[in-house]
């Protein structure tokens, strides 16, 4: 038991050191003035103008958030399923506006129905969700919805709003310190405060979910990303209809229900826009058999 804990601790330290190095490296290149941060005062401006630089920092920050989320859950130990879900996900992002992000699709060993994302391209889906879906097109729909949250930086913006921290600079320090605190390491009081803010924000955002507008926007984008990749966009409607028919208070659904607007509201929002762009196209795939063969 002791050796396990020591091993765990030294691995934590290694991760913390790597995170620190990455943070220092990114600070240094920012200081070199590749882009003058002072010109950009508002967050939206920073996001729109920093380009690749921002993507890298978003990925680093996302890594810390994903690490936190993963420490509290379990990866499904099934390489076939993990690779299958990564294949579907990677194909979908090839049909998005941010294909170059470092995308990871992670199946969690969890019976409940849930899917969520972390900044920078980390997409999580529970095995319980895979069990309840019927086809590759339905899986693609659920992944597309989470991909949309990353494309639009919904989690990043929500975490920033919740912590009232400056995007990236304060957040990456906070993320670093947060991970250090989990290992009983100590640091300056200011950083500890930052870390507590981030820790509270992660807990709040990931238990209460994103804003309703973010969810509805992700739904609208999900059907389009699905269709662009050749998947039947109406498979996503079928998923929402199934969700709407579930008893929201059962253990498998409680967390999902807490995090999302009612599925009936989401279907209503989609019902006004689904007709025109999709009804006349015929080459969409559902791929139920490949799904069943891969998930089995």
């Amino acid at each position, binding site marked *: 038991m002791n050796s396990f804990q020591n091993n*765990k601790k030294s*691995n934590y330290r290694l*991760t913390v050191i790597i995170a620190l190095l990455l943070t220092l490296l990114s600070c240094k290149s920012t200081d070199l003035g590749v882009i003058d941060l002072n010109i950009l005062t508002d967050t939206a401006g920073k996001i729109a103008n920093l380009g690749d630089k921002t993507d890298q920092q978003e990925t680093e920050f996302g890594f810390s958030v994903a*690490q936190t989320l*993963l*420490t*509290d859950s379990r*990866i*499904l130990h*099934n*390489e076939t399923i*993990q*690779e299958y879900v990564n*294949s579907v996900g*990677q*194909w979908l992002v*090839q049909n998005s506006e941010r*294909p170059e992000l470092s995308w*990871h*699709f*992670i199946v969690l*060993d969890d019976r409940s129905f849930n899917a969520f994302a972390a900044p920078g391209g980390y997409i999580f889906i529970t*095995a319980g969700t895979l*069990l*309840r*879906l*019927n*086809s*590759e097109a339905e899986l693609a729909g659920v992944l597309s919805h989470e991909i949309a949250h990353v494309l639009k930086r919904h989690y990043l913006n929500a975490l920033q709003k919740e912590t009232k921290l400056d995007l990236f600079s304060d957040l990456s320090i906070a993320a670093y310190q947060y991970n250090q605190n989990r290992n009983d390491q100590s640091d300056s009081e200011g950083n500890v405060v930052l870390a507590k803010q981030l820790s509270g924000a992660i807990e709040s955002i990931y238990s209460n979910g994103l804003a309703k507008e973010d969810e509805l926007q992700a739904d*609208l*984008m999900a059907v389009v990303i699905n*269709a*662009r*990749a*050749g998947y*039947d966009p*109406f498979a996503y*409607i*079928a998923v929402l*209809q199934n969700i*709407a*028919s579930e*008893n929201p208070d*059962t253990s*498998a659904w409680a967390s999902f229900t807490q995090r999302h607007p009612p599925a009936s509201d989401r279907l209503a*929002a989609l019902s006004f*826009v*689904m007709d025109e*762009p*999709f*009804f006349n*196209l015929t080459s969409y*795939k*559902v*791929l*139920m*058999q*490949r799904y*069943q063969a891969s*998930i089995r």
Partner: protein
Amino acid sequence: MKYLIFIFSSFLFCYSPLFAQQANTINNVKLKSAPSIKSESIKVLKPDTSVTIIKRKGGWYQVETSPQLQGWLKMLWLRYNVNTAPKSSFSLITQGTTGTTVATGVRGLSEDELEKGQGDANAINEIDKFVVSAKQAKQFAQSAGLEQQVIPYLTEQ
């Protein structure tokens, strides 16, 4: 041979009323003779009319409503009945040869498998090995005949 296998599996996957999804209309809706707006209207169904879904084709469900009247409805004008009893899986919708889907049974990843794994601080370092390249993803898509489409994002209404 392939054809025979399909016929056999069609029997296996043949929908049964046991798995068929019950749903209700949420509006005055026209029951159509085919999955197309241009097709003939069979009847106008009132809101909250109970129907049984037989299969899906694109944005349409083929439904049966009493007494033994069949036709097609836009899927977004239907809501499934809420499950009162907990169920371990959705009813399956399987794909037929014509691009339509039909209702069927349960499969999959055994529930036992979900008891394994442990929370692990190093899990983040494991996930890189599952990543596939853009090139692999393209092959994966092509092998199933997935065709890229150019479609702009929708705007809220």
